[in-house]
């Protein structure tokens, strides 16, 4: 199962790669608050703590990125 997860991760990496590059001036939709890939910090912290306390599984999350890509 461990090996399969790593293989799946690498495969997802390969397949999930973006197509044409999104230009910096075309990020208006990605900059929308509804498109933020991460929850606000207090919300995500509590979500993790609650699931961590009530479930035995683990979840890997929180890479960041996306958004307006400014600065």
């Amino acid at each position, binding site marked *: 199962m461990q090996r399969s997860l790593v293989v799946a991760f690498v495969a997802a*990496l*390969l*397949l*999930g*790669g*973006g*197509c044409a*590059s999104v*230009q*910096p*001036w*075309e*990020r*208006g939709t990605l*900059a*929308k608050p509804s498109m933020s890939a991460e929850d606000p910090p207090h919300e995500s912290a509590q979500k993790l703590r609650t699931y961590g306390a009530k479930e035995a599984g683990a979840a890997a999350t929180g890479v960041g990125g996306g958004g*307006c*890509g*400014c*600065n």
Partner: protein
Amino acid sequence: MTAATRASTATTASTATTASTAASVADACCRALLAVATLVLSPAASAVGSGDRAPACAARLLDDGAPLQLDDFRGRVVYLDFWASWCTPCRESFPFMNELDREFRDRGLAIVGVSVDKTAEAARDFLARYPARFALALDAAGTCPAAYQLAGMPSSYLVDRNGVVRAVHAGFRSSDKAEIRRQVSEALAER
């Protein structure tokens, strides 16, 4: 067809369909792996930089929709700024550009803010909260930013009196203000 053959044919068929889908997706998308493998920020091939002629900008003035003609500004120093309603650092760059306008307009500085928003409405919403003293234009089609090959948002290009780019800033931070002022002063000092 025996059960065994049927089973293996079904498996082969579904594998083939999955494989062709995977192939087309993989064909079209491998940028992530390349980027990670090389770990290099590939420079935009035709990005406009210092020393280049400022390309024409096919934007339309926000007020009347007339085409923006950068040539009209020949003889003046132009601070061309690309902004958008969704660009958070622009909330800081706009008051700064207003300051620049106050300080340097009568010495020959012309600030032109080109919005890359898709609609004039979005641009005006931003301006309602962050008003501008300077000229404003809109390029919803994105031809002007493409001509300049912006590296980031916001981006500003300082163009001297002869239409040559003297400084490029990708992004806007508080610490950029002093440097931009200095570059504007230097460009204005030239005759």
